[in-house]
Every structure is written in structure tokens, then in C-alpha cells.
């Protein structure tokens, strides 16, 4: 008997078919992933399995949990054997913010395991400990907002485990987490599912690498249809559908393995000459023993105020024209450092200087010289374009505001040309451009003042693979053609590996490792660097006939 059997499931909302005849099954003790992008119908399929379809959805076909037909039966009315546990995507909203975590764990333990209140309280602590929460007895007394994202998601898994079901559904549970935290959550899922006494797992994701780490079987969905289905490694070895190939390529692009290989070869070929060259260039940015902490809201009305240190005595020197990647997990202080370098925030102690001149927040007029030299490429650059301004007005804005001398129209045209947009775009509005064009336009605006440096904050996170590749290629092209230096803050090591010649690893507000990217990736020294590298989900089986994508 299968834990879950979905047969010819069709779901439509308002007459529009969203899921078009899905058939798959999850055996006992199996982990199966449902792969697909948003809109492929995977989340709606999961909702049907859970009995939580929206009110206006119509579904037919069959869903059997442990052999019991459950389609159309809401979760609260299902028989004990047909219950399904769930881990949602965003842990920040998946738990009641006003109820102590302990209370939220105790209720299902009492209900589904028949424990007394005292026993359930003990079991809750044990569960918290088993999913790897630090200091479990203290942590279950807290509220969900007091935990970090990774800790919260582990509480959600504990809650799902507490339900003692034969099937667990997890809907993109690691999407909002950084790689290191993601690995911890995946480890917990791996340990507590698909065993003798633990539930089978239906894992919903868009990430082939994560799927290949966790699951044995895979169902690939696109536009409501199942386009491919079978064992993960055989799909990986012989992807039949173009979309599956694209998913695999995206997963490969996110790993650093190809770069590591390439760097090893290069390092073997040449030694020391280049590093010496970089060191000879004059220093552009000098970050000298900079500290920054933020005041957290007080606990209680008269509680002590707590300061959270974001940066502690961090020093960093960056030479002209260098391409530097700053990596680290969430909360490592890398974004704070970038904000200080952008003169958007004040240091507590220490100072940031640019070519010997101090850089600190001030009026637009006082910072004009600096803004001309250093421009910013934000996360998802296209989102920073005012949709109602024309292309010309957008690119001219920094030229006019920063008082750059020369013929602005010529400079606008030049900037557009270097990102591959021609003069016919000048009169269009930002919201008339395609996604890719808009990303290019945003970069054109950043380079319009001919800056010496571009500071980028997660410029490609949240974007799909073609867009990522084109932005990274563009940044590299700009840097190589114009000699513009780039500092990019990210937790995406593969992007840093493809763009930057030097990598700085930050942790807990301090620089823990700072070396040329080649050396850092091929022979990491610091514990945290190794952890970052280990955490990147890897494709476990290399398919025949497919070569890793080179940069």
C-alpha cells in the first residue's frame, strides 16, 4: 500500500484548468519530490493532498492516503489513518506569533500520541532537541518571532513530526533560508522521514540540486502536466524534456564544482605572477577597523536595551579595478559593510575612506564627488527603475543630479550602448521594456557617470537562470572594458566564483578569510568557508553525455 496515491487529479479554478490529470504515488518509506516552477500546479496539488483547496477550486480524480480516499475531505474531517503533516514555505507566518512554541507542540502530541500534559511537555522538549534546536528547554518557552528563520523551520518540522502521520508534505521549506541553514534543515528532514517509523515525504521544490540531495524519486510538473517522472538519478542521467534539462542546468550553475575544477587547472598552470600585480595597484577603498551595532527593541517596558553587533573591527582594503566578492550567511555583516561603503549608514568606530578621503553619510551636495565615483547595483536591479520614467530620463537622472560635466545625451547613449541597448529605446518607459532589457537599463544607469567602482548587493538573487547569467556577464564585460572595479555582496558562491578574482568570507561581523577566489575555492582554510562550500547542494550523480557548464 502506498502512503500517497494520486490518480488522474484535475483541478480547475474558475473554469481555468491548473492541474491537468496528475498521476503519481509515494510509497511507504519513500521521499518523492514534486519539481516545477511557480504556476506549474505543484502547490495546488499539495493543497489537494492536504484538503486545503481554495473554496472556488473544483477537483476530480482520486487522492488516496494510506489507501483511504480523501479528495475533497477537509483535514479536520479525515480519519486518523489518512492524516497528512505539513511544513510550509515561510516559517515566519506558519506559527502563531502569540502562543508559546511549547503550547503549539504539546497540542498535537496530546491529540495524536495520546500523551498526558506532562508527558507531552517532555516530548516537546525531546522533539525540539532531536531536530537540532540549541538549548531546547529554553527555546520551546519562546515565541516564534524570537527565533531565526532556520530555527523556526525546524520547529515547524518538529510540529509536523508531532502529528505522528504516515505522510509529510513539505512545500519549499528552505526557499527563504541561506545555504548553510538550508543544509541543516535538509539534514533534519533526511533523518526523520522515510524510515521505519517516520513518515514518507512529498517534497515540493523548484531546485533540482536540493531534490537530488533528498529524494529518491521525482515528479516534474510544468503548466499543470506531469512531463517526467521516475528515479531522480535516471531523470538526471537522461532528461527527456527541455524544461527538465533547464532545471538541471540551473542546478549545475549554482554549484561551484566546475569552477573548482577550472581553478585547479589554472593554478597549476600559472603561479604568483597575477597576485603580485593586484597588490601593486593603488588602494581605492580603505575600510579601517570599522564597527557598527544596532539597538534592538527592549524586552518588556523597562527591560535592558540590547545592542546587536553587526560589524566588529572589520578592516578591508580594495585596490582600483579589483573585482571582490563578499560572501557569508545571513547576519554575517556583509550587507552592513556594503551600506557603510555606500555612505548610507554611519560607523560607530573606525572609518571608510575612498582614495584617502573619508566617506560618511551627508547631504547630496557633500557626497556628489563620491556618488560619481561609486555607484550601486541593488538586488534585482530592474526593480529600482521608476516604471513611469523614460529610459532617457532614468539614465540622465544621476548625470544631472550629480552634476557630471559634458554632454549628457552622448553619455546616456554611450552607457546604453555598453549594455547593448540602442538609441531607439530612449523614449520608451521602463515598464514597456522586457525583463532582461530592464535589468540592462538599470546597469546602464549605474555606469552612466563612468564610476570607478560598482557596489552590488545580491544583484542576481531571486532571478531565473538566463537573467542571472546575462547580468553577471554584463558586469564582467563592463569591468573588463572600462576597468571598473566591482564589490559584490552575496551568499551565492557560484556567482562570486564566476565574477570575482578575490573573495572575502565574513562571519559574525568579521572577516574570517580573504584570499584570491581560486585559492579560496580550491583550498579553503577557515571553518566557515568550508561550511559554506559544503552547504551548497550538489548534484550527486553526473549524467553521461553532459558537461558541466563553464562560466
Amino acid at each position, binding site marked *: 500500500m502506498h502512503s500517497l496515491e494520486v490518480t488522474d487529479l484535475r483541478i480547475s479554478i474558475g473554469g481555468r484548468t491548473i492541474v491537468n490529470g496528475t498521476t503519481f504515488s509515494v510509497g511507504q518509506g519513500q521521499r518523492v519530490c514534486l519539481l516545477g516552477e511557480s504556476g506549474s500546479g505543484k502547490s495546488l496539488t499539495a493543497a489537494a493532498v492536504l484538503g486545503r483547496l481554495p473554496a472556488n477550486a473544483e477537483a476530480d480524480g482520486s487522492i488516496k492516503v494510506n489507501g483511504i480516499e480523501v479528495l475533497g475531505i477537509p*483535514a479536520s474531517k479525515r480519519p486518523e489513518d489518512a492524516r497528512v503533516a505539513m511544513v510550509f514555505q515561510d516559517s515566519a507566518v506558519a506559527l502563531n506569533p502569540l502562543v508559546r512554541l511549547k503550547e503549539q507542540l504539546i497540542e498535537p502530541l496530546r491529540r495524536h500520541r495520546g500523551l498526558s500534559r506532562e508527558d507531552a511537555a517532555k516530548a516537546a522538549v525531546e522533539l525540539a532537541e532531536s531536530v537540532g534546536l540549541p538549548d531546547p528547554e529554553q527555546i520551546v518557552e519562546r515565541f516564534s518571532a524570537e527565533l531565526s528563520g532556520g530555527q523556526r523551520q525546524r520547529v515547524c518540522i518538529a510540529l509536523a513530526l508531532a502529528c505522528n502521520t504516515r505522510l509529510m508534505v513539505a512545500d519549499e521549506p528552505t526557499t527563504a533560508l541561506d545555504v548553510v541553514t538550508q543544509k541543516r534543515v535538509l539534514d533534519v528532514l533526511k533523518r526523520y522521514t522515510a524510515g521505519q517509523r517516520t513518515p514518507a515525504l512529498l517534497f515540493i521544490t523548484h531546485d533540482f540540486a536540493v531534490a537530488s540531495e533528498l529524494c529518491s524519486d521525482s515528479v516534474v510538473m510544468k503548466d499543470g502536466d506531469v512531463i517526467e517522472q521516475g528515479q531522480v538519478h535516471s531523470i538526471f542521467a537522461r532528461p527527456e524534456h527541455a524544461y527538465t534539462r533547464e532545471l538541471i542546468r540551473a542546478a549545475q550553475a549554482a554549484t561551484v564544482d566546475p569552477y573548482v575544477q577550472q581553478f585547479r587547472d589554472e593554478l597549476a598552470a600559472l603561479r604568483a605572477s597575477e597576485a603580485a600585480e593586484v597588490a601593486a595597484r593603488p588602494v581605492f577603498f580603505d575600510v579601517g577597523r570599522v564597527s557598527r551595532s544596532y539597538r534592538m527593541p527592549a524586552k518588556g517596558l523597562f527591560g535592558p536595551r540590547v545592542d546587536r553587533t553587526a560589524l566588529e573591527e572589520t578592516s578591508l582594503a580594495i585596490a582600483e579595478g579589483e573585482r571582490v566578492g563578499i560572501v557569508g550567511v545571513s547576519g554575517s555583516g556583509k550587507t552592513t559593510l556594503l551600506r557603510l561603503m555606500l555612505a548610507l549608514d554611519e560607523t560607530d568606530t573606525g572609518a571608510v575612506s575612498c582614495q584617502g578621503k573619508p566617506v560618511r553619510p551627508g547631504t547630496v551636495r557633500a557626497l556628489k564627488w563620491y556618488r560619481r565615483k561609486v555607484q550601486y547595483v541593488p538586488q534585482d536591479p530592474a526593480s529600482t527603475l521608476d516604471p513611469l520614467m523614460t529610459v532617457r530620463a532614468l539614465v540622465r537622472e*544621476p548625470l544631472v543630479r550629480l552634476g557630471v560635466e559634458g554632454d549628457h545625451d552622448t553619455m546616456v547613449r554611450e552607457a546604453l550602448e555598453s549594455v547593448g541597448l540602442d538609441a531607439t529605446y530612449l523614449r520608451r518607459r521602463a515598464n514597456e521594456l522586457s525583463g532582461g532589457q530592464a535589468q540592462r537599463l538599470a546597469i546602464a544607469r549605474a555606469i552612466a557617470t563612468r564610476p570607478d567602482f560598482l557596489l552590488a548587493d545580491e544583484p542576481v*538573487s531571486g532571478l531565473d537562470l538566463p537573467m542571472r547569467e546575462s547580468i553577471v556577464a554584463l558586469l564582467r564585460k563592463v569591468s573588463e572594458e572600462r576597468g571598473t572595479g566591482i564589490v559584490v555582496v552575496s551568499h551565492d558562491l557560484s556567482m562570486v566564483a564566476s565574477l570575482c578574482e578575490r573573495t572575502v568570507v565574513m562571519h559574525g561581523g568579521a572577516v574570517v578569510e580573504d584570499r584570491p577566489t581560486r585559492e579560496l575555492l580550491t583550498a579553503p582554510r577557515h571553518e566557515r568557508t568550508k561550511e559554506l562550500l559544503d552547504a*551548497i547542494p550538489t548534484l550527486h550523480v553526473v549524467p553521461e553525455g553532459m558537461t558541466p557548464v563553464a562560466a
Partner: protein
Amino acid sequence: MALSTQAVPALRRTQRRSTGISDASRAMLISTASRIGTILLVIFLLGILPLLSGRDIAATVFRSRYAEGEMTPAALEAIRQELGLDGGPVGAFFAWLGNAAQGDFGVSWTTRQPVLPTMLEAMGNSLMLMLASLVVAVVLAALLVIPTIRRGLAGRSDRTGGGVAAAFTALPEFLLASVLLVVFAVWLGWFPPFGWRGPAYLVLPALSMGLPAGGFLGRLLSDALASTFSERWVATWQVAGFSRTRVVLAAIRRTLPGVTAPMSLILVGITAGAVVIEQVYAIPGIGRETLAAAQSQDLPTLQAGVILLMLLAVALGIGANLVRRLLLGPALRSSSLPAPVPKAPSSRWALLLPAAMLALLVVVIVAGLPRDPFSLDYARLEGPSLALPLGADASGRDVLARISHGALSTIGLGAIVAAICLAIGLVVGLFPNLGSGPIEVTNAAPPILAGLIVAAVMGPSSFGAAVAVTIVSWAPLAAHTAALVAEVKAQPHVKIAPVLGVGPVRLMLRYILPSVIGPVFRHACLRLPGIALALAALGFLGLGPQPPASDWGLILAEGMPYVERAPLVVLVPALSLIALSIFAVSLSSLSIDLRGGKPRVSRRRKPRRSITDPRTGLVPAARTRTADIPVTTP
């Protein structure tokens, strides 16, 4: 991996970080100073109210003390010194404050009795009435909330139907009181019409005040509960097999903190409602005393009345805030409550009701326009005929003509008020911290209270009524503006502006204002019917246009004495006002996208978060007034 596994929203992070020490504490300082300043200003204005009225106070006080005595300059001088009048406004204020602090609010200028004992006794009656109304309101709200809970448990968190029923309970108090009085006291004779002599006298007033409050409370709770039920933890709990009772209790507990602020406004609204209700049912409460004082310009009584009403309102507000803190507990300090899930836009059918009401009003207005509202051409209270479709009033004037012309003047005045409110709201909303005090204070002040004060100073007139309604009606628009500004400022294309060299002035005018002005303008338009109703309510109390003006509230008030002989003189204005309030409420409960049609950068996948500061509660304040529109964030 490639798509967005690593997509930690950096925007959210930078947002959190940008509230560093200096920014946050400066904002806090400004808004606290603004609050204290506003309250002091209000107290100061109240203290020197007699001076503002421009009369010879010493003479008035002399007359109120010694009805027969001879008014010698020496006696007047003694009074001036006693009242601190020779020290100018400031001296008068401190003299008044010193006396008031000792419980001496002076002597009434009309009855020559000490003010405070009379007012305290009246306050007791009012509190009893408010308590009874509160019971009615809570029962009604509970009934209205039940269907929402059932739908929520079934996993449907769409807005409840019942909008029509809620609209009918949301009639303004003066209207409901008149209708209930006519139906149950005059026609059916079930309850006594006037007075204050036993429990039976409590029923109609409590219903008149409790039903609108309960209807509003029910609607508010339903919406808030529906949004709570759409939160993810409900799904987690249901899937984990929590019992229905536990889910419902937790949902209610989760909902209450968000609605305590508007609930305290409802309570404050009940204090203002007391003015009207006590007037209609002739109950010797503090509202009626204060109104009488305003009409006869008995300023010491008015001062005491307004101060007592304000103290009551402040006490309720502080109580609500304490309850909110208690309920939220630790979730407040981490200030990371889940953002509300946007509501789905209303269906086209929801437009039917306001459209029908609008059509009805337009027909009446057009039909009556060519007729003359002032000439006394007909017999007193003449019945309806083909030549006189709606009959004549007590002075023999054409009711249809008066309603039609009244609509034009009421709505026209309302439009001017709305336009002024829009301008004030935009300007104040652009400086949210500075404006927080005035916004809170005027948002909590009901139009009637403002009307009382303005009428006392300027004498009752349409201009005074317009000023009074303006004073309290700009606040929701300012709060809305402030919320939108905060939201627009958090958008990536505005956040990047400083890096491009855009200064603060250009940022405000070129980047922020264009995104804000459209939605706030539409908001102001949607408030227009509510403003017209507030004007009519002041007219009904005699604080607005004076006879023979054809203001709707005035027409209703003038007709009341003749309701038994000619029901039409009451029914016609009452029905018109009912149509107007259903129009206002059904329009306001439409969940219209107020942020303009242009979808901003649809490429982004992450939904924008609505900026609701759980501490200042600026946004909730914008959502709370009776005739408000839900500010939706798509």
C-alpha cells in the same frame, strides 16, 4: 538552486537595518513631542474658550452671579482680576486651570449653579446609557462575527457577505434614533418616547446607540478575523489537528490586538453619540447638557462638559492601548507580526447597492431642482398630490424642493470640506512624525464634539459646521498619506534615489508624491458622503445651517414635532439620509484598489509588504473611522 533558493530578501534586511538608533529615536521624540503639544494646545484652547468667543466676559459673569445688581466698573474689574482676564489669554488660562484643578469649573452663565456637580450627575446618567449601548453593541457584533468564524474554519477567508445588513446597522445615530422613536414610541407605543425614569426608558436610546456601534464593530471584527484566518498558522494548526475551539480562541486572541485601537474609537464614538441620543430622547445626560450649553453659549458648562467627555475618551484610549500591549505580549517587541494578506477586490455585484442608492438620490435631486424651496405656497403639512409629490412641511414649503436643494448645499459643502481635508491630509501626511499628535487627537475626536466647541465660539452656522467637520475629517487622509509614503519609500526605485544624487525635496515631489496623490484623492472622494452625513448630523442638532436653510439634518429636526400628523415630513428626509448612509457605507466597504491602476514593476515576484508599524498604529488608525475605506495593499 539557481532560481531563488538563495533569495533572502535583502530589501527586508536593509529596511530593518535602516532604522538605526538615531533615526528611530529621533522619530520617536518628534512624535511624542507632537502628541504632548497637541494635547496641551487643546487644553489651552478650551481654557481660553470664553476669550475666543469675543464677548465681554466680565459682564456676562457679573450677570450670571448677580442678576439684579448694578454693574459698576469696580465690580467688573474685580471679576476680571479674579478670572485673570487682565493677564491676557495666558493669564486667563492659568487662572482657569488653577480653579479647574481644584474642582471649580465656575458658575453656569445661564442657571447660575456651580457647573461641576450638575455635570457629574449628568455624567452618571450618560455612563449608564453608554453601558447599556455597549451591551447591545457587543451582542450584535458577536452575532455578525459568527458566519465569518464558520467560513474561516472551513478554510475560506474571503470577506463575509452580510454587507447589506451591516450597512443598515451603520446608520448615523441621529437618524436611527429618529426612526426608532417614530416607529416604536409614537406609532407602536411600546416604549416611552422621552425622559429618564426607569429601565424602559433605556431601551430605545441604547438600541439607537448600540446598533450602529455593534454593526461597525461586527464589520471590523469580521474583516480582521477573516484576515487572521488567512494567516498560515491557522493552516498549520488545522493540519496538525488542533481542535476547532482552540483554533477559534487563538484566532480571536490574535485578532483582538489589531482592533483595540479602532474599538476604542468606537467607544469614543459612543460618547459623542450620547450627545445626539440624549437630545432626541430628552435624557438629562452630559451630552445634552453640553449641547444646551453650546447653543446658549454657556461657556463654563461647555468647558466642563467637553473636558469630561475628553477625559472619558482619553481614559478609554489608554485602556485600549494597555489591553493591546497585554494581548500582544512579546510579539510586540519583536515587531514582526505577519503582514496582513490583501483582500480580493469586490465582485461587480457589490457595486449594485451603492449604484442603486446613488440613482435614487440623483432622481430626487433632479426632480426637485426646478422647484422653489423657500416660498410658503402651500397649506401647512399639506398631503402629497400630483402637484406636490412629497407634501408640504409645517411652514407650507415644498418638501421635494427642500430635499433637492438641501442635497446640493449639503453635498456641495461636503465637497469643499473634502477638498480642504485632502490638502491638509497630504501636507501633514508627508511629515508623519510631526503630524502624529494632531492625527491621533483629531482622529479620536468626533465631529459633534468639534461642532460643539466651534458653535460655542462662532455661533451655529453652516460655516461653523464646515469648520468643525474639517477639523476632524482630515486625519484619516493624513494617516493614509503617511502610510502610503512609508510604503513608497520602501520601494526599491525610491530607496536607490539618494545614491543617484536625488535630494530630499526632489525625492518627495518627483518620486513619492505622484504615487501618493491619486489614491489619497480617491480616498477623499469616497469620504464625501460620510462628510455630508456629519454635516447633516450637526444640522440636526442645530449646530449647523440655521432656518430657513434646507439642510437635510435641519429638515429632519424641523419635521420631528409633526411626525404624527404628517409622517412624510420625517420619512422623506429620513429615507434620503438612509439612502445616503447606505451609499456611504456600501461604497466604503468595497475593497477598491486605492493604489492606482498602474501595476508597478510586475516583474518582481515578491509581494510588497504593507508598512504597518505595530507601535504607532498609524495605518490601523486610517482604517477605522465609520466611513472609511479599507486600505488594501495588492
